[in-house]
């Protein structure tokens, strides 16, 4: 980081619009326009996707209306379709993935950025990035033979003996479960959280750290009270990426989640996620109504992503405003 660390500045805060008028030359306008065009492509692609899903789901929307969301039966033979168990499974596994993945990922990023020598840190980060390239199906197959028995034989009994009074941790454990789905997701989102958080932490100017250390803070206090808040926006950004990935991950989850469309409070019970349902049934579905129902599931997932992002964005807005004030 030869350049960025030489100058101290507050980059974490949202940039103000600068008095550009006098600099406004042709080049600026062209650059603005070009980047805008490319940015607009993203919007157009997303809009097109939204439209495709919306029209593809016409048949089920006409038949079931809003009851598609509250229905709990999924019966391709009787053509009765309800999405609630899938919505529940998607939300629970994604939440579990973040609960497990975020502390682990941010912790590792802090270690790599603040403590490890740069060479080691670069090497390890590089290795972790490779995790993002492992095909889903390999994660899934490995998980069946390692993670699933591990959860069934060790983790479940442990949680049941300590926290078994909670309904979350009751019932028989088969191994394949919401917890297994959440755990494999946590592992899969780690590279996104770690690599991006680490880069953001490394980009924090050295002066910030030095000022804090000079005031007598320990290294951890400097990290936790100065560096991490400074990099907060970037870290939250990485968590967004992770969340989006978790919501949409298919192949690995479907191999370990149990694929049972019933709502169970216990995380040891099997469940089902939206993406898994689409992946499982789309390629073999032949009836128009069945296909339409699967596309509507995709549409529902899209809407969940919209909602989850809205909530998270609100969260960011409030937190960055606070740190922006300092």
């Amino acid at each position, binding site marked *: 980081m030869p350049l960025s660390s030489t100058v101290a500045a507050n980059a974490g805060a949202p940039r103000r619009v600068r008095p550009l008028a006098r600099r406004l030359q042709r080049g600026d306008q062209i650059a603005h326009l070009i980047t805008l065009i490319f940015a607009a492509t993203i919007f157009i692609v997303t809009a097109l996707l939204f439209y495709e899903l919306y029209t593809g789901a016409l048949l089920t929307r006409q038949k079931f209306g809003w009851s598609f969301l509250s229905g709990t039966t999924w019966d391709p033979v009787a053509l009765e379709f309800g999405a609630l168990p899938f919505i529940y499974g998607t939300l629970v596994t994604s939440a579990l993935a973040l609960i497990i993945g975020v502390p682990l990922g941010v912790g590792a990023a802090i270690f790599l950025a603040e403590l490890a020598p740069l060479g080691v840190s670069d090497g390890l980060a590089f290795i972790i990035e490779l995790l993002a390239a492992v095909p889903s199906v390999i994660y899934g197959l490995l998980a069946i033979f390692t993670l699933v028995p591990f959860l069934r034989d060790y983790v479940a009994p442990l949680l049941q003996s300590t926290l078994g009074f909670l309904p979350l941790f009751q019932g028989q454990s088969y191994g394949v479960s919401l917890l297994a789905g959440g755990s494999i997701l946590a592992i899969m989102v780690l590279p996104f959280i770690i690599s991006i958080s680490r880069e953001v932490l490394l980009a924090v100017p050295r002066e910030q750290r030095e000022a804090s250390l000079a005031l007598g803070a320990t290294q951890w206090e400097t990290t936790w009270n100065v560096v991490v808040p400074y990099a907060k926006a970037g870290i939250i950004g990485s968590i967004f990426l992770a969340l989006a990935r978790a919501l949409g991950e298919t192949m690995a989850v479907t191999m370990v989640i149990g694929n049972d469309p019933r709502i169970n409070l216990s995380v040891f019970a*099997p469940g089902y996620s939206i993406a898994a349902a689409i992946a499982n049934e789309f390629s073999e579905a032949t009836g128009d109504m069945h296909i339409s129902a699967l596309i509507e599931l995709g549409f529902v997932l899209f809407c969940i992503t919209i909602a989850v992002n809205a909530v998270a964005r609100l969260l960011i807005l409030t937190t960055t405003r606070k740190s922006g004030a300092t």
Partner: protein
Amino acid sequence: MKTLVSVGVLAFFCVSCADSERTQAEAPPADQVLINGAGATFPYPIYSKWFNEYHRKFPQIQINYQSIGSGGGIRQVTEGTVDFGATDGPMTDEQLKQAKTKILHFPTVLGAVVPAYNVPGVTQEIDFTPEALAGIFLGKITKWNDPELKNANAEVNLPDKNIVVIHRSDGSGTTYVWVDYLSKVSPEWKSKVGVNTSVNWPVGLGGKGNEGVAGLIKQTPNSIGYVELIYAIQNKMPYGKVRNSAGTPLKADLASVTAAAAGAVETMPSDFRVSITNAAGKDAYPVSSFTWLLIPSKIQDQAKKKVLKEFLQWMLTDGQNMVEALSYARLPKEVVAMEQKAIPEIE
């Protein structure tokens, strides 16, 4: 910007070197025929074997088959994005009506679905009555030492443990064959659950693919599921006998599957769409099925039409000699003869 350029250069380098590699490896002859097909997963090994052999025999012909699922095969051939399809369950009348050109079914090989289990302490083969299988998959028989199971297996020391049912979560021809059988032997299954490539399972855990189900069965004590015969053999999984319509307990093998097909010969309709689960005959394994190629009756491209017809002829003769090595059962002679008569229907 520099990086963009360098990434581009790198990419270009990759392509150009890869291109030269290809031209060296394979100079395509002038009259090359490329044919694409898609569909069922279950016959993928034998199809890839056939198309490979055929390419070796006629290097200018490349028939590319991709296993995207039976439903996918039916849809793609209906929409005309592939030259032929393949399926484990015959197309329904309604589906046939949707296709622009008439679609012909050609049976290729036979397969069987077996009940595979993992019951610690049980080394003998378990003998399943139709009632026991239906009861287990309906969630009515929940213990391994249920009287229905015990009566049929006097010598087996069945434990007093809960049965964990494992089924396919992905829509599949395997599921279609299994539930088709269950609905033939159990009126309750027929009315409550029905037949499809995906159903609303009354009980159990879902595994993705044969591999997923096989993995779950191996990993879960006291579990039972259904997989294709090849998977059970290749994975060395214990699987049970099933009592057929004559009451004979039979283990699935090439002979008993072929017997089921032989039983269907007399009733074989001219369009080959037939279910042979719970077939008559005392040697017939009851959970057997054909798998089909789906070929449009009108093919515009003359070269493709010629190749497909010749391939079908080859598949019914030389091709059949390769199937048993891969644990598929070959077609009965009578069916082969019927199909050979049907080939000219492709125009």
